[in-house]
């Protein structure tokens, strides 16, 4: 298997309106990376738009969720010999200008690098409830993993070669962002956070409500505690 440098994995579900521009922007700004769009069972032309703009496309036959989408991207990277994977969202909220910082961390030997919205860059604004939820989860995850984590739910992150192979084989079921941090910490992988900039979404709206946020926080806390007591 030949070793390729870097792969950007874009998770997309019904993003036909903006996936093309996101892929095109990434290919222009970061030509050294291959771009893979994981189309998670979209019912629109997401896959075709991405392919037209030069991305490689992995289409799930039906919607499997974010965790499975990330796992598919890492499985693809592992099978095709990629050294680094940067995971981003297909809606264009993650700014390509932040990718070099993530890549630098990976090149310095870090296996899991988290793009943090709260580590120094003030581009991201959210409600007080979401801030409280984030701080609670950040505290819990930092305690359980022995690493200072400020943004436990960030989907903008990078994986090194060991992490790619590990998470292609074993991957969290439901909440990949915080759970994988704890799994990586328990594997002894080097973990780092770098500040990243978030942009407003081009299309669609957030489906989170206060009740959903509170329930999410409870479920993630439970999942983290379960992960902590599993055998390594």
């Amino acid at each position, binding site marked *: 298997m030949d070793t390729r440098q870097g792969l950007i994995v874009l998770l997309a579900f019904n993003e036909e309106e*903006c996936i*093309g*521009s*996101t*892929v*095109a*922007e990434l*290919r*222009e700004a970061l030509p050294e990376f291959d771009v893979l769009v*994981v189309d998670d069972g979209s019912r629109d032309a997401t896959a075709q738009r991405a*392919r*037209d*703009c*030069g991305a*490689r*496309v*992995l*289409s*799930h*036959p*039906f919607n*499997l969720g974010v965790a*499975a989408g990330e*796992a*598919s991207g890492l*499985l*693809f990277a592992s*099978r095709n010999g990629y050294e680094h994977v940067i995971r981003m969202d297909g809606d*264009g909220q993650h700014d390509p200008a932040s990718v070099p910082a993530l890549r630098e961390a990976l090149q310095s030997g870090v296996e899991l690098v988290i793009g943090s919205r709260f580590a120094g860059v003030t581009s991201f604004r959210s409600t007080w409830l979401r801030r409280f939820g984030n701080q609670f989860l950040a505290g819990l995850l930092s305690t359980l993993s022995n690493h200072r984590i400020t943004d436990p739910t960030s989907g903008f992150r990078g994986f090194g070669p060991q992490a790619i192979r590990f998470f292609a084989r074993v991957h969290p*079921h439901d909440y990949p962002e915080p759970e994988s941090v704890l799994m990586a910490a328990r594997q002894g992988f080097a973990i780092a956070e770098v500040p990243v900039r978030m*942009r407003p979404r*081009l299309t669609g709206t957030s489906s989170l409500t206060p009740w959903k946020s509170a329930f999410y926080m409870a479920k993630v806390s439970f999942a983290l505690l379960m992960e902590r007591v599993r055998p390594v």
Partner: protein
Amino acid sequence: MLRSSLIGVAFAAAFAFSVLWSARGRRTSERHTFAWLLVAVAIAGLSLWRQGIDALATAMGIYYAPSALFFIALTCLMWLVYRLSLQVADQRQQLKRLAQEVALLTSAEAERAARAQPRPEVVSSAVAARRDSHAV
């Protein structure tokens, strides 16, 4: 035979018939069929052996015999449902993995087919549109 015993036996027989009918149509697996038939036999047995419930309750230290029956029935049902939830979780994992393998194979096949045709260049207009949307 008491009327309640008759009702119990008739219910057990109807349940066993339904289970066997489903098995005949290959709608249930043999091990599940066997487990449900055992349940039907237990219902029929307790319906015919009237003192059986009292004996069970005494053995369990329960004063009110029907409570013992409810406890046993609920325990059996919970165990069955729990087993089923474990199987659902296993099958969910297998289904997810299968879908991922299908996606990987389909992608490889599409890329092989596309190699014969030139890949289109980056769509400049799409990049421009993206920049415009974030311009202040």
